[in-house]
């Protein structure tokens, strides 16, 4: 059996998490190569539809990263994220998809290390969960 290499998608807001990811890079913080970042302006623009789409097409895990509550470049944008993503996870859970495949976290522009930490933890978690069963469906 070949080793399971998860495919992970991360949505990062331009102002905090994407910058945090950049900082991680600048500091050469090493992390597993499974995460692919899509830059959005605010975590609040991440439609749950994207998460559902990715999961149902076989992506193994989805990260949604935004500014800390109170730090949102758009005042209260991430407040909506803070509510939508938990609902997204619940719905996945209800139909039998392990909701640990989706994670919401806050990473500021200064938190390169936290970004690294989140990636390392998430990739490890997804590896323990194994491949997304939806992969099979879509083959």
């Amino acid at each position, binding site marked *: 059996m070949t080793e399971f290499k998860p495919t992970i998608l991360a949505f990062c807001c331009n102002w905090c998490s994407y910058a945090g990811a950049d900082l991680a890079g*600048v500091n050469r913080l090493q992390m597993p190569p499974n995460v692919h970042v899509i830059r959005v302006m605010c975590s609040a*623009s991440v439609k749950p539809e994207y998460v559902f789409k990715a999961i149902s*097409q076989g992506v193994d895990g989805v990260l949604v990263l935004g500014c800390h509550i109170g730090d949102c470049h758009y005042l209260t944008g991430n407040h909506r994220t803070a509510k939508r993503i938990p609902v997204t996870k619940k719905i996945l859970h209800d139909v039998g998809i392990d909701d640990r495949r989706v994670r919401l976290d806050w990473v500021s522009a200064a938190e390169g290390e936290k970004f690294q930490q989140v990636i390392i933890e998430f990739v490890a978690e997804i590896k323990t969960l194994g491949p997304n069963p939806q992969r099979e469906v879509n083959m």
Partner: protein
Amino acid sequence: MMVRIGVFICHCGHNIASAVDVEEVVEYAKTLPWVAHAGHNLYSCSEEGLGSIKRSITENKLDRVVVAACTPRTHEPLFRRACEQAGINKYLFEFVNIREHCSWIHAKEPKEATEKAKKLVAMGVAKAALLKPQTESEAGVIPTAVVIGGGISGLVAAASLVEQGIETHLVEQTDRLGGLLCDITTIGPEGRHARTLVKDVVQKLEASPKTHIHRKARVSDVKGFIGSFEVTIEGCDGPTKVPAGAIIVATGTREFAPTGEYGFGEHPQVITQLELERKLAMGEKPKRVVFITCVGSRQPGREYCSRVCCNVTLKNALALSKASPDSRIRVIHRDIMSSGSAAEKLYKETSDSGVRFLRYGLERPPEVVSDGDRVNVIVYDETLDEVVSLDADLVVLAVPMLPPDDSEVTGKLLKVPRDKFGFFLEAHVKLRPVEFATDGVFICGSARWPVNARECIWQGMAAAAKASIPIKEGKVVIQAITAEVDPEKCAACGNCVLACPYEAIEIVDQDGNRAAKVNEAQCKGCGTCVAACHNDAVSQKGFTSGQLGAMIDALVKASLEGSR
């Protein structure tokens, strides 16, 4: 429509090439749909690199460009400009980050890094194919500013604006200018005379024909957005509508009235710092004075430190101590917050001058007992571990500064946020100080947070400088990442209206068809509304669901095909 994408992979010297096999990524890019050309550069951002991209655009008749290099946060403008120079709309450019997000963080896994870079490029290409040319809209700017608040911050801001030749309306609630400084003798630690300072600034202001001072007036309505606000000023002669390009909020602060605390309001000997200032201004020199600090602050419900009160206490204690050799000045404090070398010097000087400092704790606060003419302050001194009784002619309470009563109204008028205490919140403390997140509205002085006069002056100047930028430029460019509504699709359910943090969306009736409409100048491009819309009637330029969906599809395709 023809789609011909050019993909340029950057070596970034060794920065990328040491981990990512650039040539392999180039070969991969050539197999992707719509890719008409794929190449690589040693340094894409160099003159040579940019030149080769521009040449390739012409030679290969490219209509979209994808550069896989570093981070868009620093280099996107550069490549966008290059595209523009080569005749491609700059919004037909897509940046793929394979340095910060790939080579640097997977430095020891070249194979994996290369595979990831391929996927990132595939995602970028998928998005690029769906990019649409955008026009940045520009809006004119009315060369007028409105400053709300005639305290020292507002005065300085207004003065700074008129000095730059900008027509400025200053709106003051009372009939006097200078705000709290009018009630204050000197401002420390340097001991400048407050009124002189105010007079200087007011003179400068009044000397300019560009100044319009509205006394006994308030702002009753604000419409519009950066560059074209319409501010209604309610003055003695009724309302005036002032068109303005920018607004500065300098509504200042007020002193907390500690009614009921330490006999305040009960014993005439118990007064606040500001009342002491008035007495000092009238030449009174009380001898036995007890100062109590942190009255009503740093405690549940008002947890913050008001920052200015300790220094004011020190300044006044020192002044009284120096005024008569037999004075007995005592300061009962929880901590002395006097940071900075000047303030520290003041503290030392005060202490050396014979002022006695006693420390109390929140759990055992001092008590004020009156016997008619005099009052006694009974305090448990934590340092001495004993209860001390201090007799006093005057007890001065250092109370925190509060936002003005009408800060909520002001906040709503301007659609700017306040914190839980009612002070205004700027857009970002570090990235955008003195600016509100709402473009064209600025903040200075103690309305933002209690600050001393010196800081008020800095902030007033800073806010004026920021406010003058759009006015001087005469236009504001709106980056084409705003939200737009397809009225055909829109069900007018109002989700976006509720979700928008900027109140930039409204439901309008157009020929009987109700649909949401985005005010572009008010939209900041966060996309919150996009996620709130269930049928994709709202989309964000440059981040459409089609584009992001295509990125996901590309990742899935590249990953699943790879795993097969």
